[in-house]
Every structure is written in structure tokens, then in C-alpha cells.
């Protein structure tokens, strides 16, 4: 009796995770059973993006600081994984200038991803503390500057990253199941962080810095922990991503990708994991539709020129429209909850299931 009550209470308190996870799992199983190869690919990539958006939400959503560096951290995770798992022979051929010590490295995949997350976390530990002391425009510009610094290093340090050229030769290890598992793990982690004491303190510093300081919250340290956790999550997802893509260049970790990531979080609402999920679903769906449209236009040869960039163009317009309409994102900082236990799901959950 009491155990059942406690279970129901537990579910009631944390139903958001279940409400988000179940449609995601169901969609995955359905798509894998009936969908085409293309659909499975889209779903897999969606899950990886979703995991990345959760990692961004952990810091940006709860602290209110625009974390430009996120996509750079993903890049660090991807390169670390690439260096660890790619067979030495392939590395010798693909990255001719690589340091010999790095060429000899060969680690099984799972530990490699964990190491990649730790390496990313270490970078965040080093650069994070001073950055977290800054506020307002200063934090926006410095984090942006950090992304530029990371990108410059990735494109120039060809002893490690192969410079601006493609890094290739990773095994294709990430299946839809692994991508889904990653997304679910990140969902759980992001949700747990938001609800934890630390997350609550971080949200307090976002909403009213002075009041937070007055009740004894160490703002810089709270932000710092959130930043490092978020970076480690990004590094881990970067590793999973790299094992799906199998070849990449520094271009993948710069403004363009950051725009996609940011639009996912901002359109849905950065305040919670539900907003991140819905934003990722909407952005993925509209991007795929627009990409189809773009290729139809280009293949039909009705225009005398090729249409490039239509996807980004429409996404930018969509983003401005959403921000004008609802500056805090479509569902704001709310989390999904059933209206009352036993009733049907709301429209927002149905949206999530449609992925």
C-alpha cells in the first residue's frame, strides 16, 4: 500500500521524464520497424541532436547565459573520441602530421567516449572559472570569443585535428538504439540537474542575482559546476555523434551548427527539458521538410540557379517569429505534466510522439 503510494507519488513528481521518454521510445521502435532507411537515419540524427540540446539546456537554460561554446565542446569530444578509437594505421594515413604518441593510442569505444567526456570536462574546468565571473554582454562576448578561439585552434593545430581538412576513419558504431539511449540518458541527467538543489540554485541566480546572493548562494561556483557538467555532456554526445558521422572537419563545430542547436533550444523554450524536446522535434521536422523542398526545387530545374541556404533562411525567419510571438519559447519555462492523472495527453505530448 505505502509502496504503491510512494511509486505513484514518485511518478507524479517526475512524470515529465516519462511523458517525454515514452513517445520518443515508441517513435523509435515504430520507425525502426516500419520506416525506411532514410527515416531511421533522420531519427538517429534527431536523437543525437536532442541529446546535445539537453546538454545545452543544462547550462544555458538554468543560468540564462548564452553558451556559445557548447558546439566547441561537442567538437572536443568528437576529436578526442576520433583520436582514441581510430586504428593507428588509418590515423597515420589520414592525419599525416599527428603526434606519434596520439597515433599509437587505441582504446575500445565505450571507455573512449567516457575519456572524451572527461577531456571536455577538463577543458571546461580550465576555461570556465574566469568566464563564470562575467555577466551580461561580457559573458556573451567572451563565450563567443571562446568559440572563435576553439575554432581557430581546431583549424590550425593539424598535429591533432588534421587542421581544416576532414578527420576520417571512425567506425560507424552509433545505431538508432545507442542514439536513443544517449538521448534518454541526457534527458534524465538534464531533468535531474534542473530539479536538484544545485539546479535550483542556478535558476535562482538566473532569476534574481541579488536575492540569490542574499540567501547565500555562491553564484560563480554554482554557474561553474553547471558549466562543467554541461560541457561534459556535450563532450559525451560529441563522441556518440562522431561515431555516427565517422568523418568530420572543424566546420561542423562552428556558427552554423550552433545556430541549429540554439534554434532548437530557443524555439521550444530554454527553461526546461520539455521545451528543449519540443524545439528539437519542431526544428528537425521543419529542417527535413525544407531540405526535401530545396532538393525538389533544385532537381526540377525550374529555376536557372541552384537554391542553397533556403533551409537556414526559413529557420531564421521562423526563429524570429517565435521570439516575437513568445520570447521565452513555445512552452516557456514550464515542464509537461498531465492535467490530472488518468486524463488523455495534451496536444504538446502528441506533438512529441509525432517525431
Amino acid at each position, binding site marked *: 500500500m505505502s509502496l504503491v503510494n510512494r511509486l505513484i507519488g514518485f511518478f507524479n513528481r517526475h512524470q515529465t521524464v516519462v511523458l517525454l521518454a515514452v513517445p520518443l521510445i515508441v517513435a523509435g521502435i515504430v520507425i525502426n520497424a516500419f520506416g525506411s532507411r532514410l527515416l531511421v537515419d533522420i531519427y538517429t540524427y534527431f536523437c543525437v541532436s536532442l541529446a546535445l540540446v539537453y546538454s545545452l539546456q543544462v547550462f544555458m537554460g538554468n543560468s540564462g547565459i548564452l553558451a556559445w561554446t557548447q558546439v566547441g565542446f561537442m567538437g572536443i569530444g568528437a576529436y578526442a573520441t576520433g583520436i582514441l578509437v581510430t586504428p593507428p594505421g588509418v590515423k597515420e594515413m589520414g592525419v599525416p602530421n599527428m603526434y606519434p604518441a596520439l597515433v599509437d593510442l587505441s582504446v575500445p569505444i565505450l571507455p573512449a567516449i567516457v575519456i572524451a567526456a572527461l577531456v571536455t570536462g577538463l577543458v571546461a574546468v580550465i576555461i570556465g572559472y574566469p568566464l563564470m565571473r562575467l555577466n551580461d554582454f561580457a559573458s556573451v562576448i*567572451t563565450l563567443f570569443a571562446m568559440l572563435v578561439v576553439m575554432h*581557430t585552434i581546431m583549424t590550425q593545430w593539424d598535429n591533432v585535428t588534421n587542421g581544416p581538412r576532414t578527420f576520417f576513419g571512425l567506425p560507424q558504431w552509433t545505431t538508432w538504439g545507442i542514439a536513443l539511449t544517449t538521448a534518454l540518458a541526457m534527458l534524465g541527467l538534464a531533468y535531474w540537474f534542473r530539479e536538484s538543489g544545485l539546479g535550483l540554485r542556478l535558476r535562482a541566480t538566473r532569476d534574481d542575482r541579488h536575492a540569490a546572493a542574499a540567501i547565500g548562494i555562491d*553564484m560563480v561556483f554554482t554557474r561553474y559546476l553547471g558549466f562543467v557538467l554541461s560541457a561534459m555532456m556535450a563532450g559525451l554526445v560529441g563522441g556518440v555523434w562522431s561515431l555516427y558521422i565517422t568523418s568530420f572537419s572543424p566546420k561542423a563545430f562552428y556558427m552554423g551548427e550552433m545556430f541549429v542547436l540554439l534554434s532548437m533550444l*530557443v524555439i521550444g523554450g530554454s527553461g526546461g527539458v520539455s521545451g528543449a524536446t519540443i524545439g528539437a522535434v519542431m526544428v528537425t521536422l521543419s529542417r527535413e521538410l525544407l531540405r526535401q523542398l530545396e532538393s525538389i526545387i533544385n532537381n526540377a530545374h525550374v529555376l536557372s540557379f541552384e537554391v542553397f*541556404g533556403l533551409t*537556414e533562411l526559413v529557420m531564421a525567419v521562423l526563429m*524570429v517569429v517565435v521570439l516575437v510571438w513568445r520570447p521565452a519559447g513555445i512552452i516557456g519555462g514550464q515542464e509537461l505534466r498531465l492535467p490530472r492523472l488518468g486524463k488523455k495527453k495534451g496536444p504538446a505530448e502528441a506533438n512529441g510522439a509525432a517525431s
Partner: protein
Amino acid sequence: MIDLEFVINTLSLGSLYALLALGLVLVYGILRLVNFAYGEYVMIAGYAIFLSATYLNAPWYLTLVLGVFAAIVVSYLTEIIAFRPVRTKSVDALIVTSFAVSIFLQNVVLIAVSPRAKPVPLPSFFSETVEVAGGTVPVRNLLVIVVTAVLLIALSLLMKKTVVGMAMRAAADKFTTTRLMGVPANVVISTAFVLSGLLAGVAAIFWVSRSASVDPLTGTGPLLIAFICVVMGGMHSTIGAVVGGYVYGLVFNVLSLTLPASMVSYRDAFMFGLVVLFLLFRPAGIIKGGYTEERVG
């Protein structure tokens, strides 16, 4: 190393950077908006020069006027269409909006013109050189110094003597109080965007003249430079932005001369590293503004 040629080159680079920084600060001062679309005004001006010269066969002075005019119009339109509806709601949304506007403008020219770089015809005297006290300097380097000086004088007269200028300075200090004094917010903000576009347009002439071409990503360079100058000089005063521009010109030239050849490709990383150091040790910049809260710990 320190000869007249170095001084003129540094001054001209500094003038260009000062123009870029000033355009960014005018808007930030009033709206607290870090305008990520600012670099695209430069890019649009470059495309306007290219289009008017290629398709209208306009004479060179007209192409330059059209270029500046295009930057002003686009700057004003972005304010009306994108920033105005968002600005009362949240500063974070405003920054993200400006990023979206930047992506939008880049892709507009990508689709409408071409993803490839286009040549920008500029009058031939731009690239001619003259002898100044034993050194050779391109005419455009002297021209940018003169144009910047004229613009800065005109701008400071505008800010000091006219009503709208005084309103803008007051708004940069205390926007709410200024509005309570009966100054219409929209006029002040629109003027700031128009001036921002004007400065970006003029800077664009000299920016594109260096490579004589323009492509959809041209705006990134000016944006990053404006950021660096503004952080070094001070985000809260127009004087700070100008000082930051000249200081950056100096640092950049000294770095180019002194860094070993193998490290020059890391110069951007060095510059941004410098920005981070500035924010840590002197977050208010060289010229301090009023009450600021860049650093919280």
C-alpha cells in the same frame, strides 16, 4: 620599425576599426543589444556596391553612396521588423534574434546573388600609392584617416548640439528616465540604428577595398573586430569604442610584425585571448562608463 609608414598604417587600420566599433556601441549603449547582425550591414553595403556597379553601371561615387545607403536601410529595417517587437520582452531573446537576423541576411545574399565571392569595383585611386616622407602608402589608407576624422567630428557635433543627439546620450545613460522626460523611445532607437548602419556602410567601403571582393561571410570579420575593440575600449562610452579601435589597430600591427611566421595563423586566437584577459582584469575597458556590472564575482 617605428617610422612614419608604420604610424600611417596603424592610424588607418585604427580608423577603420574605430568606425566599426562605434557603430556597434551606439546600439548597445541604448538597447543593451550585442548586435550579431552588425557585420551583415557591412556585407550588404559591399553587395550594394557590387550590384550597382555591375547592373546599373553607376559611376563610382554613386556606387559608394548606394552602398552606404543600403547599409542604413537594412539596419533600419532590421530594427523595425525584428528587434522592435522583441526588445521590450527579454534581452536574451534580443541577442538570439540578432543572431537569427545575421543568418537570415547571409542566406538572402547566398540565394539571391551567389555563394561565391563577387568582385567589388572601386575607383582606381584607392589602390594607388603616394610617397609620404620616404615611405609608400596606399591612398585609401590616407583616405580612411580623413573620412574617419570628418565622421567623428560630425558625430560628436550631432551628439552634443542636436536634440536627438542629447536624447541619445541621455538614453544611453538612463533609458527609462529619458523616456519619462518625454523622449520617444522609437525615435532614439531608430536613430541609433541608422547611425550604426551609416558607420557600417562607410567602414564597408574601406573593408571591401582591401580584398576588392565580397561574399556572404564577409560580415564575420568586421563583427569580430568590432567586438574586440569594444571590449578593449569600453562598452559604455562612444569614446571608449574609438579608443579601442585605435588600440586594436596598434596591437594588431605590432603582433603582425613581431609574431614568428609559424604563429601568425593563430593571431585571431591571440586577439581573443587578449579580449578574455581584458574582461578579467579590466572588465569596464580602457574608458570606464557609468555604473556597470560586467563582473559578478
